[in-house]
């Protein structure tokens, strides 16, 4: 089934969504409006047997507007078919999470947020995944420098004087029941 065939079967299942076929060299590509992505994925899974979400990733097309494209790769084992969904996202835009449809999207979306800073609405755990928790910025963005120097991020070393150490020991001794 090519992109137009998929759009034809999808349109009655997702009312109100304006799908758009995309150019591709490998398999069907469909542009989906961000607000309809969850309903589209649910329809694809339940009615068109796309039961596996293989991959969620993104690409930063700076300076184009809308800036990002979030890319979903779906797989239908039953029909030996692959499908690519794309969602255009503005620089400050958000995308609803597809976790309710595909639980495996959790970390994939988390990685996209980590690397591109694209917020997934309703995601239950949007934290740093690959980068350290105190990292600033989103490295895969095109305006993120390739080589930067950062001060070492370490906690201040624990410095305890002899008096503080003894006081702490005493305090602890009193508290501990015999």
């Amino acid at each position, binding site marked *: 089934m090519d992109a137009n065939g998929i759009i034809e079967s999808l349109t009655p299942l997702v009312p109100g969504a304006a799908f758009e076929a995309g*150019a*591709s*060299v*490998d*398999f069907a590509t469909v542009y989906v409006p961000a607000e309809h992505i969850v309903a589209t994925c649910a329809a694809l899974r339940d009615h068109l047997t796309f*039961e*596996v*979400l*293989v*991959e969620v*990733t993104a*690409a*930063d097309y700076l300076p184009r507007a809308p800036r990002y494209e979030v*890319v979903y*790769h779906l*797989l239908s*084992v039953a029909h*030996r078919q*692959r499908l*690519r969904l794309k969602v255009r996202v503005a620089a400050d835009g958000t995308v609803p999470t597809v976790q309710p449809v*595909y*639980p*495996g*999207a*959790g*970390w*994939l979306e988390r*990685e996209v947020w980590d*690397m591109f800073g694209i917020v997934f609405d309703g995601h239950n755990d949007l934290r*740093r*995944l*690959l*980068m*350290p928790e105190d990292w600033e910025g989103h*490295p*895969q963005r095109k305006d993120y420098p*390739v080589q930067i120097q950062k001060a070492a991020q370490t906690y201040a070393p624990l410095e305890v004087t002899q008096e503080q150490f003894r006081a702490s020991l005493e305090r602890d001794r009193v508290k501990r029941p015999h």
Partner: protein
Amino acid sequence: MADIRTETMTVNMGPQHPSTHGVLRLVMELDGEVVQSVMPTIGYLHTGIEKTAEQKKWQQVIPLVERMDYLAAQSNSLAYALSVEKLLGLEMPQRVKDIRVLLAELQRIASHLIWIGTHGLEIGAVSMLFYAVRERELLLNINELIAGFRFFPSYIRIGGLREDLARGFHAQVKEFLDRFPAKIDEFEGLLTKNDIYKRRTEGVGYITREHAYAWGLVGPIARAGGSDYDVRKYFPYSGYETYDFKVPTATEGDVYARYRVRVAEMRESLKIAQQALDRISPTGVFACDDTRVVPPPKDKVYSEMEALIQHFLIYSQGFTVPAGDCYVPVEGPRGEHGCYIVSDGSNRPWRVKMRAPSFMAIQALPTVVQGGLIADVVAVIGSTDVVMGDCDR
């Protein structure tokens, strides 16, 4: 007994734990020996390869992607090369396809050998590691023969292979193929009917087909749970449709089933490798004839002006790839290795993204081990065959 005060205990496992295959960290909440919750932390091996790849020319990315899944280097580079060739619209000569298939299958065996060794080691069959690594050494020798590099040969290039096969390649591969079936029997003799091994692995860490699909696990893990999805059969690439092989499956979905599937996969890989070896002539064409991508032969560079210019262009500017994007999956040892590339029409990739099977497997780990015993966690991690380089990239 009612007044015994019990509380859960939080245990940290990793990142420097031998059973975590690198630097995976698990924070586990235990109730006695029962695992209440698991929280995996990854990213310790994140090296920003995808960001680095955007700064390199197309052909310079090959050594980078090989370092992602360091136990299946040529599976990564095959996925990358195939995806770039798809955008370029290149078709490989039959001999190149056959050599790539042979290398991919030898790579699968090498990766499965490390898996069987470490998995055995972790659950008590310590000697497995020595037997497995001994055989893997022979495969690394083959890599050394063809490319001079044992781990990351970078032998698969965009547009073909780096150079023609080395003298003695056929004899060395044939020696391995003749020797290895008896060695698989030896491995199976150590594990398959081993009562201790079976007690540690049977009925542990169930992953059914539906569970695997929901969490995006495709590959040996799903096949052990009843799926028959294999990229080589469903979306053949590099001429796999012309080879005679079976896709081993099991229905139980436990650790033992995954063990049996992978061992059977090694036997099937041997069959494919044997067929490929029979088709490959000792010398012949090793790249396609597209002069944009493939550098001219060295003797022509010294005698013909056009060849010199072409050589200079490829190694200084690189080649451009038509704008667009594509995703090409290959069946790696751990499951579907896919490479999604975006080109803006220039000589450097705009975006390179590897689909990492280990990433998905670690994400699904809590759903598999929760409610089980802590000792089973080690068996389950081993059976999912995660490689942190693949996961963190």
